[in-house]
């Protein structure tokens, strides 16, 4: 016998729903006593830090068949929420058509953790390091509320104030329920490159060490450059630590239709420092993180001119 009777009685039940709808209905039934878990890497870390106390019920999302599928459909890259991070970043379509996401994923944690952790788990925390890349790629989130699936743009989801945390409560007029992230949809442009436009992507993560560390600052850039060298379109997003990722709209506005010349870079640098308000971190000041972000973005633009 591996463990004694007390441990069996004290340890959580693990539920393995066979569909997204079943998972959400189960969560409804269990309320706060039930916790969704996918790769469980983040949750296990939190449980250890809290003295090893586990919740009463775990709802194992990896049991849902097909929820880890990565596919292209109707010009969209669809990544199931329980797709493992390494499977995402090494998937040929992700590498070729959404390299920004692949780059972001490869800087999350370490190799072995990425074999276990899922994209949905990283995204659902709202402050996962993949989220700035998803935002820059104009991703949509697909939710299941127990009855049906529906789509929400990631920017909308991120903009909600007073966000309650890991549990995703949705208040409707009649009921209070919970919804489950089932997949992430990323639009793929018709032509990856055309004669008129050139696309480039860049992702940066800065922390207190060279590898495998929490982010202090993350930055993602998705750019379309015209023949004349000016930006036809550009999306710049930022996150870091507990900061909810945002689009740096001022910097984007300053660049649209312009080339990344010295004056533009100067203005962008200032705008980034202005617009980025990081969630305070015990190990680095806000000023340091703002300047780091502005520097990384300006340097990236300078490299690409």
């Amino acid at each position, binding site marked *: 016998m591996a463990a004694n009777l007390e441990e069996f009685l004290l340890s959580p*039940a693990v539920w*393995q729903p066979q569909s997204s709808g079943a998972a959400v209905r*189960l969560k409804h039934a269990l309320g706060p006593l039930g916790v969704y878990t996918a790769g469980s890497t983040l949750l296990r870390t939190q449980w250890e830090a809290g003295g090893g106390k586990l919740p009463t019920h775990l709802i194992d999302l990896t049991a849902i068949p097909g929820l880890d599928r990565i596919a292209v459909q109707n010009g969209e890259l669809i990544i199931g929420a329980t797709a493992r991070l390494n499977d995402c970043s090494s998937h040929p379509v992700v590498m070729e058509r959404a390299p920004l996401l692949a780059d972001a994923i490869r800087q999350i944690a370490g190799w072995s953790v990425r074999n276990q952790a899922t994209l949905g788990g990283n995204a659902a925390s709202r402050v996962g390091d993949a989220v700035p890349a998803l935002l820059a790629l104009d991703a949509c989130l697909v939710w299941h509320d127990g009855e049906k699936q529906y789509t929400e743009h990631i920017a909308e989801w991120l903009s909600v104030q007073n966000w309650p945390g890991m549990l995703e409560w949705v208040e409707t007029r009649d009921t209070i329920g919970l919804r489950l992230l089932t997949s992430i949809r990323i639009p793929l442009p018709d032509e990856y490159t055309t004669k008129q436009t050139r696309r480039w992507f860049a992702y940066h993560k800065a922390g207190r060490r060279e590898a495998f560390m929490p982010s202090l600052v993350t930055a993602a850039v998705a750019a379309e450059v015209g023949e004349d060298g000016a930006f036809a379109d550009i999306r710049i997003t930022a996150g870091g630590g507990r900061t909810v990722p945002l689009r740096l709209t001022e910097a984007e506005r300053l660049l649209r239709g312009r080339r990344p010349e010295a004056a533009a870079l100067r203005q962008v640098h200032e705008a980034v420092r202005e617009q980025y308000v990081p969630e305070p971190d015990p190990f680095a000041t806000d000023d340091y993180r703002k300047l780091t972000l502005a520097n990384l973005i300006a340097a990236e633009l300078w490299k690409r001119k």
Partner: protein
Amino acid sequence: MIDKLAAKQADAKLQCEINGSPVTLETPPTRKLLQILRDDLGLTGTKRSCEIGRCGACMVLIDGKPVNSCLTMAYQCTGKSITTIEGLAPEGGLHPVQQCFLEEGGYQCGYCTPGMIVSVTSLLERSPKPSMEEIEEALSGNLCRCTGYGGILRSISRAIERGGMAHEG
């Protein structure tokens, strides 16, 4: 009410393969694989260190992929094939990577070594001639406090040089 949802519950019985042998164990589904290996099965080659997946001392292979056994629970191992440091080499022999670590002195206290060798073996299977960047990517989650990674890099270089993961003898 929960029954009506017809939701399946994970077994209190773990059935999997460890180092090539079938294993059946009565265990709470959330028991850590690290604990199962060390305390229930006596396979103490896999080590306990940070227990939050940051150091790699607990590294094992699950279906051939490196995974932190401190982050893995029993219910996640059902039907899987698990390889620990004890199962890396053929009976009585040494895996070529182990041999390289011995010759180059890729260890000092040795506590990080089982996890390190598991990760290195997996890396070389995926990529027989990795660049320094690939090595860093594969091993940034395997901390060593003794060597400064010098002996480890020498061992990896030697293993790359020798090429091939075919077992010797």
